[in-house]
């Protein structure tokens, strides 16, 4: 094997057929607000934890919709439940409660 100083970039392809959507359906039934998010990123921009660690509710929700719960776990693992994101959400989503429900349903 030769080291060229670069290699094939990993594929970002998402196979939705292989993803388990059952938990997200349960989440959406319990927290209909999960479907109200328009991914504006206000929550991430105001997040205190995000200043120090890779934390983002917006990306976590997207990951969950794509069946990537491991990625979502990493993005929420440093959340301190301070609730600043709830205050800035333009859709009025109770993000703090949503995060708690995600942690509960996905056993994160």
């Amino acid at each position, binding site marked *: *094997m*030769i080291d060229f*100083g*670069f*290699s*094939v*970039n990993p*594929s970002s392809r998402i196979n939705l057929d292989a993803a388990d959507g059952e938990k997200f359906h349960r989440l959406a039934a319990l927290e209909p607000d999960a479907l109200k998010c328009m991914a504006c990123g206000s929550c991430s921009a105001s997040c205190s934890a995000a200043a120090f660690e890779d934390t983002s509710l917006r990306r976590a929700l997207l990951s969950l919709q794509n069946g990537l719960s491991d990625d979502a776990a990493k993005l929420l693992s440093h959340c301190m439940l301070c609730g600043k994101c709830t205050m800035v959400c333009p859709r009025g989503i109770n993000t703090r409660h949503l995060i708690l429900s995600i942690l509960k349903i996905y056993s994160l």
Partner: protein
Amino acid sequence: MIYEGKKKIWAEYQKEIPEDHYFYVRSCIRQSFFPASEATFLDITRNKLGKDIFETEHHTTCGGIAYHSDAIPQETAMTIIARQFALMKKYGYENYVCSCITSFGLYCETLETWREFPELQQKIAENLWKTCHLEFAKPKFLVHASDLIFKYRMQIAAKSKYKLVNKNTGEPLRVVEHIGCHYSKMFPSKGVGGAEYPYVLVGMIEAWGGQIVDYPERRHCCGFGFRQYFIKSNRGYSLANTHKKFESMEPFKPDMIITNCPGCPYFLDRWQYVIAETEGKTYGQDGHGIPVFTYEEVAGLVMGYDPWDLGLQTHQVSVEPLLDKIGIPYDPAKKYLGKNGKNLGQPEKPHCLK
């Protein structure tokens, strides 16, 4: 009524290609990558088919490689292009044929920009006069060299010595066609078959006896993309595009790939070596790769040119298994001999790719 409607819709995917009298401009990189392709194009069109294809040593690059790499602004590229068109007029031609897909895309972009912004056209005409003392002109017809080979495909088939057929089984060869992105993805109306149904290479393959492979990533980019490749840290992205295409075509067991762009055959050919050396994976039979050809090389092969005169020894993926499949004779002892008979030197063998 329905037939008329279909005819009208399909007319949008047609392209008018004049039969003869062209001003030909070469690519700035193809002669290094595929040294005999352009010479073969000129030999076939001029000497075998008797067409009037004029070329002058005074023409230059179109500037596309620098423009797409953000090294020169659009107006500079436009002035270079205006000079090319002015040379065409100076030598008494109205039809312009270019060897490079990126040039073709940039010519289309430039002509469209001039149509939309006449004041810019005026400025470029002034630039041209100030810098070169040449009279501004625009071609009546702009075509890519693959359009011409497409136009002449039946004439080439009539003169062919070989067909794209497996001589042992009698089955048509399974051919992957790859169209350069700048051919019709930017200006669909300028390409044969548009962006949705590009027919330019398919027409050649069908005329010369091959069978098309339709695979999921057929229209995906080869990964060249200029900036993706020029910077080493981005090359993994470039490589990933080629990798994705090969993973997608592999189950269909293609015998060969035919392309009409300078970058695509280079990357599809050379990246097979890099994939083999980094991932240990090869896509052809028995550890070989899938040979990649330019359309001129394939035209030359079916017309009975010597494979080494077509420059096939400069390919990374060995072409001999395909030549054996078609039944094209070749002399292995002459593979690395130059035109003057002197030994060019033999490249080192790859570790994985046969």
